């Protein structure tokens, strides 16, 4: 008996030492930066008392540069399992207070162990990144560690949701694990993410740039598009994580958890949002709010490529992914960034059994040398690929403009849309009336006495004839022309009908999307 008590006490002592992380001074520094500790972060995300830590006693195997005499609590990363809303998740949090959260082989193997569990048990994995980078003293072993993580990120991709929280530095090779995951969360003033940091840039170029300006939260949320969610503090970030997890399934064999259906609660009138003049802007998110349950729309990558809107809402209690052109920003054009943004989201929805609703109002692709030279052709092709490839239910509503290549790209019937609706204000045509009239009636306009009057006449003639949904409807490319206020019920019916949708594809190892 006495022995058992003693051994239990020894265990408790050992655990207490590890739980102190890098010690008081290091924790104080962490707190001063506005950061929680690794264990506090995990507690804040998981259900109360649900965290089960694994590998507390793992030791690093660095032998050189005096490393053999150093001990690092939990080897600088807290790993384990727990629950969120009662459902299991795997989680790890790098501990910056221990050797700067630096990654050595054993540190990495702790991470890959929980990733393996997540993949086997089919539950999401949440990674909290807060690390100075590779543990240089371990040399190539540290690189091996990163590689083993990247490999698992890739194998788990499309099988289980993977979330990355950047709650501190995440530099060099370390950035590629988040980049391979599905959702990246950043926090103002805390997240710092880059391949080469300000020091290297200063040495090579002599250019002075702060970490914040180079790879701070705002930069990744707005300019690079690496981040999906941007928060002002860690607490807000954890709420975003929990909110997102309510919308998505735990793995690719399940559907997202359904909740009780609710009517939209917005006071907005869907008939008054979209101006009839196709040249006037509006916020397409207002249309979404008129359609989704409780008017609750979770926007993703809100700040980056804002000319397209993506995110989750529910309809009839079930999760739906929305892709919508945003006429308020850059007239809602497709360009390199918005194509990347939409395509990746469509593929997430398709991987995780989430139906896609597309709201279309766009004049075409963004013209310009910079776009052409940046490869708008191969970027734009990703949208075509992602929509065509997707076998989840696909519903499109054309609100207003659907011109040219944009009409085809935005989940047209021709790319396999299951249901095509158009509002009576829809203009489905090979190009906008001005451009089309200039080409078709070039001769008439040139020969007219009053060219401008003739041009206007011909533009009007074109609008009359083609800038409507009825030409496409006459060919069956649009199934139904609907009133705006019918939009929700029509989509609900379409989704209900698609509940058991099956669509086969030829067998292949994998397709070749234009990466």
């Amino acid at each position, binding site marked *: 008996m006495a022995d058992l008590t003693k051994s239990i006490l020894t265990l408790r002592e050992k655990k207490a030492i590890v739980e102190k992380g890098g010690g008081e001074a290091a924790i104080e520094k962490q707190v001063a930066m506005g950061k929680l500790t690794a264990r506090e972060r995990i507690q804040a995300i998981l259900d109360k008392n649900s965290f089960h830590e694994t590998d507390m006693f793992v030791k690093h195997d660095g032998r050189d540069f005096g490393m053999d005499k150093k001990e690092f609590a939990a080897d600088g990363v807290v790993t384990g399992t727990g629950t969120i809303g009662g459902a299991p998740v795997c989680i790890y949090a790098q501990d910056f207070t221990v050797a700067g959260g630096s990654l050595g082989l054993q540190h990495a193997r702790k991470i890959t162990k929980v990733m393996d569990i997540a993949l086997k048990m089919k539950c999401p994995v949440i990674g909290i990144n807060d690390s100075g980078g590779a543990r240089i003293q371990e040399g190539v072993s540290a690189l091996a560690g990163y590689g083993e993580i990247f490999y698992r990120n890739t194998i788990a991709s499309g099988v289980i949701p993977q979330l990355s929280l950047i709650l501190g530095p995440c530099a060099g090779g370390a950035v590629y694990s988040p980049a391979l995951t599905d959702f990246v969360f950043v926090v103002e003033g805390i997240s710092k993410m880059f391949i080469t940091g300000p020091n290297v840039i200063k040495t*090579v*170029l*002599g*250019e002075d740039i702060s970490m914040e300006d180079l790879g701070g939260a705002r930069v990744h949320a*707005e*300019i690079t598009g690496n981040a999906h969610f941007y928060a002002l503090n860690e607490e807000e970030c954890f709420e975003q994580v929990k909110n997102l997890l309510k919308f998505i399934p735990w793995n690719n064999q399940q559907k997202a958890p359904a909740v009780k259906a609710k009517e939209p609660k917005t006071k907005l009138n869907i008939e008054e949002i979209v101006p009839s003049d*196709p*040249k*006037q*802007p509006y916020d397409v998110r207002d249309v979404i709010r008129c359609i989704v349950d409780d008017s609750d729309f979770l926007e993703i990558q*809100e*700040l*980056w*490529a*804002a*000319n397209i809107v993506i995110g989750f809402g529910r309809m009839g209690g079930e999760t739906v992914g929305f892709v919508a052109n945003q*006429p*308020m*920003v*850059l*007239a*809602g*054009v497709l360009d390199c*960034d918005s194509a990347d943004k939409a395509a990746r989201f469509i593929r997430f929805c398709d991987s995780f059994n989430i139906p896609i609703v597309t709201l279309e109002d766009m*004049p*075409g*692709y*963004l*013209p*310009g*040398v*910079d776009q052409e*030279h940046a490869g708008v052709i191969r970027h734009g092709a990703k949208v075509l690929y992602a929509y065509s490839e997707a076998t989840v239910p696909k519903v499109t509503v054309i609100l207003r403009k659907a*011109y*040219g290549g944009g009409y085809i790209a935005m989940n047209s019937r021709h790319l396999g849309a299951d249901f095509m609706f158009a509002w009576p204000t829809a203009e489905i045509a090979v*190009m*906008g*009336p*001005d*451009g089309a009239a*200039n080409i078709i009636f070039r001769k008439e306009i040139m020969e007219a006495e009053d060219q401008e009057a003739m041009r206007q006449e011909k533009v009007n003639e074109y609008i009359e004839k083609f800038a409507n949904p009825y030409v496409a409807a006459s060919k069956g490319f649009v199934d139904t022309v609907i009133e705006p206020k019918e939009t929700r019920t029509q989509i609900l019916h379409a989704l209900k009908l698609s509940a058991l949708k099956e669509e086969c594809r030829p067998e292949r190892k994998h397709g070749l999307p234009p990466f």
Partner: protein
Amino acid sequence: MEKIDKKYVDFSVMAGTYKTRLTKKFSNRPQWNKPEPGDVLSNLPGTIIQIKVKVGEKVEAGQLLLIHEAMKMLNRVVAPVSGIVTDINVNVGDKIGKNHLMIKIVENEK
């Protein structure tokens, strides 16, 4: 919301003009200029190690102009065209960025 110009501006796409906001990225996009065949630009950030030509010198296409150390490599920068070196905008030891105009050559008339 993205940091965008608050007011709506006219924006042309395919012969149609729309009222919309612009993104910061779009407003800051670089202007395209036709490249001069004799402009020798750095294609990587790095350091000038050696300069092998002088202003006024006649050079042949393919002739070594300078050594530019970048990404741990001593890169041999050669003349893209035959002509006269009219400008050398770098000195040995200079740290330069990407697309820095290092040397200007006025091409021989064909």
